[in-house]
């Protein structure tokens, strides 16, 4: 998960990485209480990059201009994203702009230090000159000096830039981050360095052991791209197929197959594989129950393809959850027992058409259980995908 610039700079400040005096602006009138002397830079706080080129960063000289500029920025979407916060920051005269980053490289399973003498908004130029140093053993500051030298720095800049990288690395490790980036790092004519913009990517899996970081994030919108969500993920706006699977690989393979067969996935939901330390048949049943509920409540879903492959829980238990979910959506007359199952299903409120494919133990028991609620258990993934796409196409024709 990414932090906004102002959150990243809070962490920078705590670690002793030099940042400019700045103030968080939640609404334009906050600028009347500004304690930073003008001129001031107002920056849109969005997760997307490239805000500078589209007017998300403005210099202002006085309060009147500042309030007007803030109103403009609050109403300016950056690649579709509106800021909820601005950052007002002191102006700083720089001679040069560098790029510095610490990032976890998954190919080599090590953190890597990145640096370029050409930082700033032109990412392509930064990339062309990018130098990197792999932190193969325990970090020690010489890794940072190694990068400074590879970047072509000389004299006092070697120590000031490597000192900055050392602090970035400590931040990276202390908070279990995936990325710490300073771009640009402002370098003044006298060789002073300053983190002018910063980006931090937090690791989702490690977040729970960093309560302070969690608290920082809780202030902002967590519904940002990349965040692992328990809610279904939207796909095609005009799709009709909902896909529910257990496990990421199976989810992707199923969705690929639906698309390849000419179907349009509307949303998908992965209720989780079986490698969570606390996974159990009970937990899986609960996740399935919640997942079904969420999918059914997603209006766009006309056909729900359920593809579950489990070694943990027998198919008939899964079938029982599906059947229960189906029955619970029925408008309840006084006594359910008086009505035949068929009648019940017919009365089901806005329940998508189900295509159920289960693999595991006790499939025949599952088959009968599903048949009791008018659902056919499909044996192969191929058939299930074909069936789901066929029903979706039929639904489209009928609508």
């Amino acid at each position: 998960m990414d932090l906004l610039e102002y959150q990243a700079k809070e962490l920078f400040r705590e670690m002793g990485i030099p940042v400019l005096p700045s103030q968080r602006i939640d609404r334009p009138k906050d600028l009347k209480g500004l304690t930073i002397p003008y001129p001031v830079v107002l920056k849109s706080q969005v997760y997307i990059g490239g805000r500078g080129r589209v007017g998300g960063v403005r210099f202002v000289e006085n309060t009147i201009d500042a309030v007007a500029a803030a109103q403009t920025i609050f109403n300016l979407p950056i690649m579709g994203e509106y800021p909820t916060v601005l950052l007002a920051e002191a102006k700083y005269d720089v001679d040069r702009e560098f790029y510095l980053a610490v990032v976890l490289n998954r190919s080599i399973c090590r953190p890597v230090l990145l640096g370029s003498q050409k930082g700033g908004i032109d990412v392509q130029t930064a990339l062309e000159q990018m130098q990197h140093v792999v932190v193969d053993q325990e970090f020690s500051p010489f890794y940072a000096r190694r990068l400074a030298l590879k970047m072509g720095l000389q004299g006092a800049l070697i120590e000031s830039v490597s000192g900055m990288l050392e602090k970035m690395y400590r931040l990276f490790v202390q908070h279990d981050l995936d990325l710490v980036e300073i771009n640009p790092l402002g370098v003044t004519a006298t060789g002073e360095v300053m983190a002018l913009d910063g980006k931090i990517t937090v690791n989702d899996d490690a977040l729970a052991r960093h309560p302070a970081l969690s608290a920082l994030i809780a202030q902002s919108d967590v519904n940002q791209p990349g965040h692992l969500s328990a809610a279904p993920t939207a796909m095609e706006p005009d799709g009709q197929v909902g896909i529910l699977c257990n496990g990421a690989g199976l989810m992707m393979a199923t969705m690929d197959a639906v698309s390849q067969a000419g179907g349009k996935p509307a949303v998908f939901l992965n209720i989780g594989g079986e490698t969570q330390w606390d996974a159990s048949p009970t937990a899986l049943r609960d996740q399935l129950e919640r997942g079904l509920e969420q999918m059914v409540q997603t209006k766009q879903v006309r056909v729900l393809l359920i593809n579950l492959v489990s070694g943990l829980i027998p198919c008939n238990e899964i079938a029982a959850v599906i059947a229960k979910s189906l029955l619970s959506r029925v408008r309840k007359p006084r006594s359910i027992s008086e009505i035949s199952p068929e009648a019940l299903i017919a009365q089901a409120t806005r329940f998508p058409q189900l295509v159920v494919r289960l693999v595991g133990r006790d499939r025949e028991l599952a088959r009968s259980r599903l048949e009791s609620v008018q659902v056919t258990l499909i044996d192969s993934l191929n058939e299930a995908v074909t069936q789901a796409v066929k029903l979706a196409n039929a639904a489209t024709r009928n609508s």
Partner: protein
Amino acid sequence: MNFTPSSRVLIQGITQPLGATYAPLMQAYGTQIVAGVSPGCGGTTHQGIPVFDMVEQALSVVGAVDSTVIFVQPYAALDAALEAIAAGIRQLVLITEGIPPLDMVSLLRKAEVTETLVIGPNSPGLIVPGQLLLGLHPGEFYTPGHVGLISRSGTLTYEIALELTQAGLGQSIGVCIGGDAIVGSSFPQWLQILDEDDSTEVIVLVGEIGGDSEEAAAHYIAEAIDKPVIAYVAGRTAPRGRRMGHAGAIISSQTAEPGTEVGTADSKINAFRRAKIPVADRPWQIPDLVKKTLKLPMRKG
């Protein structure tokens, strides 16, 4: 490497939910589970398996073990793995999902100097059909044979194992390197092992988006692997920048992984094609491609 029915196996986290469920299943499959470990539960037994407070204590009673399967909580996994290494165990299967990547970096630094094989994390482990189960693979999906199956996912691997079994193609091994961004053993490592393994005739590699494991594997196969390989890549339609469930199955931004388009399904499929490796477009096409490669009769369809 010792993955035979004579392998002696330890279970760390045997009283945790997942460990408690799977230890007896592994044992039922024929795996020699000699002990379990769970701090504070020493002296008890779990389904007949003696439980100890520490690994070294278990080993002093039951003797050396070949492998340990680790089911502990994500934030306790690094410690459990280091405990196993300190006790001399050199084959670790990390089932647990959600281990912080920097913990894995520390573990892998240690594993490298001690020459320890780490399978996972976020992996159902390894199965040698009919012989040995170290992890979660549902034994009933597998049958002994000559297809070596390596992957990054759990349930998709079971799916493909079942497709192979139903097509009459048994497996020499099923192993998952793990769905996280930072994992221990790699595709090239397993390709080499299976290339040298007498019971493997053909290798099925099941990849997915994110990272460059498949690209690296394609390169390695072209360079060093003699046996035929069939590939499949999941995630052609996965939206960019979204976590699909696996921490590793995400196409990252350019800066984080320089090398521009690495990580997409296209990049991976193209890498396999360039290396002249047949790529199945759908999981159920894999058995036919295997048969074609082995010049076996095709199923009717």
